[in-house]
């Protein structure tokens, strides 16, 4: 199976075919976003060269003026939630694996329950809660929800990883005189670096892409995220194809960049057994 040239060709054939299936739609959109409306319809698969080339779509996206705001909102929400998930998740996982205390096992179970029970089921009560707290149409509401939503998986992965780490290094730090707090920040955090990337990507995707909570908790003009913004923008401009395509492309690019930056670590984290069945 390893060195048979025929089967090797067949394998690459399958892989290339599937790659085309995965990439083609995205490329199609990206290419056509640089064309005029006429160009988009006359020759959808041609490259945006010569007279086909046009940035009209991007101009109307930018003219809309709100996209930088949406991006800012998404970025703020995603980054703050991510930091909270990683930090609080790692802290909790450390607390649960490192110390023996009453109810330890139960608390651990409670904290990862959320993997199985989607937080969306509590939307009704969440909205009421945020109304009471005066947090509707704020980014804070989103951050809090996403943090709560991301914690279980993060705690689960960190806990599994920390269990596999020898406790001796922490004892060694204790003998070196570090306080329990500094042991976490100076020894444990650097130790879990390999899984942090994995947890980060897995937590980030659903936050950046979420439509449900922005739609319900903060649909206001000022607090719209990119995903919601695109959804609404496209709703308004369905006839302006250049603008729609440009907006879609604009929404893809930042994710793509982050993915390229993180993908190596992500794969390493996954294959290091961080995500186990």
């Amino acid at each position, binding site marked *: 199976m390893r060195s048979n040239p025929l089967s090797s060709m067949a394998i690459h054939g399958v892989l290339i075919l599937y790659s085309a299936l995965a990439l083609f739609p995205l490329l199609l959109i990206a290419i056509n976003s640089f064309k005029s409306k006429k160009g988009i319809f006359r020759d959808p698969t041609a490259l945006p060269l010569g007279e086909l080339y046009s940035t009209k779509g991007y101009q109307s996206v930018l003219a809309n003026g709100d996209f930088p705001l949406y991006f800012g909102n998404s970025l703020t929400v995603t980054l703050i939630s991510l930091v909270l998930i990683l930090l609080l998740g790692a802290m909790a996982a450390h607390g649960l694996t490192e110390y023996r205390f009453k109810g330890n096992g139960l608390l651990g179970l409670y904290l990862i329950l959320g993997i199985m029970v989607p937080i969306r089921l509590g939307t009704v009560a969440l909205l009421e809660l945020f109304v009471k707290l005066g947090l509707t149409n704020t980014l804070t509401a989103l951050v809090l929800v996403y943090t709560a939503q991301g914690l279980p998986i993060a705690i689960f992965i960190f806990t599994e990883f920390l269990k596999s780490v020898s406790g001796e290094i922490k004892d060694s730090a204790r003998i070196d005189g570090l306080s329990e*707090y500094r042991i976490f920040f100076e020894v444990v955090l650097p130790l879990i670096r390999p899984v942090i990337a994995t947890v980060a990507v897995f937590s980030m995707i659903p936050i950046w892409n979420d439509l449900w909570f922005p739609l319900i908790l903060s649909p206001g003009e000022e607090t719209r995220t990119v995903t919601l913004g695109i959804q609404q923008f496209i709703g308004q401009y369905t006839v302006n194809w250049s603008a729609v395509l440009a907006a879609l492309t604009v929404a893809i690019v930042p994710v793509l960049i982050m993915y390229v930056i993180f993908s190596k670590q992500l794969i390493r984290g996954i294959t290091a057994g961080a*995500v186990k069945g």
Partner: protein
Amino acid sequence: MSHSIPSGSRWRWYIVFFVAPATLIYTVFAIYPIVESLRLSLFAERDAVEAFVGIDNYKKLFTEPYWADQFWNAFKNNVWLFVLHMLIQNPVALALAAILSIPNLRGAATYRTIFFLPTLLSVVVIGFIWQLILSPLWGITPAFMNFMGVGKFFAPWLGLESSALTAVTLISIWQYVGIPMMLFYAALLNIPEETLEAARIDGLNGWSIFWKVKLPLILPTLGLVGILTYIGNFTASFDLIYTLQGGLAGPNGSTDVMGTFMFRTFFGFQAQLGDVNMGATVASSLFFIILIGVSVYLFGVQRRLQRYQA
């Protein structure tokens, strides 16, 4: 490893410091809302005050035709969604993962990156992309199908009652195949090289190694993927359908799923008024549906599959 550190006081504050923040946020913004939803499903608004009504809301949901029709329609659609994901998405994911895990495969990293790419993108973006591609207006798909000689089979699938749900599901599969693929891939890579070498020495070839050694060894991951598919199918499917087909999940409710149904019930849509308690009732029903699935997984599937390990 657990440790008890000599300390003057009984109360070890650092433990509180480590576990309290996560526990607090999680309790207030994840567990409390779900519990509160369960509670709300037992109440109803009577003369502008909330009154305890027992399981009346559930009775209403399952017996009044207006509610029951919608509920069972959404439920049925969800089941179809689940079946298609299980039959197409997960086998494709497994096949891709199996190919990618062939030792020394050239370009494996690149393929992996490409296959996972759609998963990263917003459902909204994906939804619109496919809407454009499948649109008869643009004509990409008809042109392509003509080129392949099957042009006469083209139809505006997303707009037809008979095919809309399947079309939406296929889009979802296209997008999310990357996640089970990664899980399978990681599981396959975790199989010790010695086990595979031993199989080779026992005379098994590539195919039989996959079927008789690798597959049994990754059964637990298969179970995990199954339950994740089940949960995601009931909740995450909202985004795509809302984007593609709108809150009414048209045409004529043919793509309505629990997520969109819950959304409409809670917030109202167009003429329909929102109803907090009925929304909570739908959410709670969904909670029990998921609970049943998870229990089956934890007590039936997972336990049996775990035996294969070690």
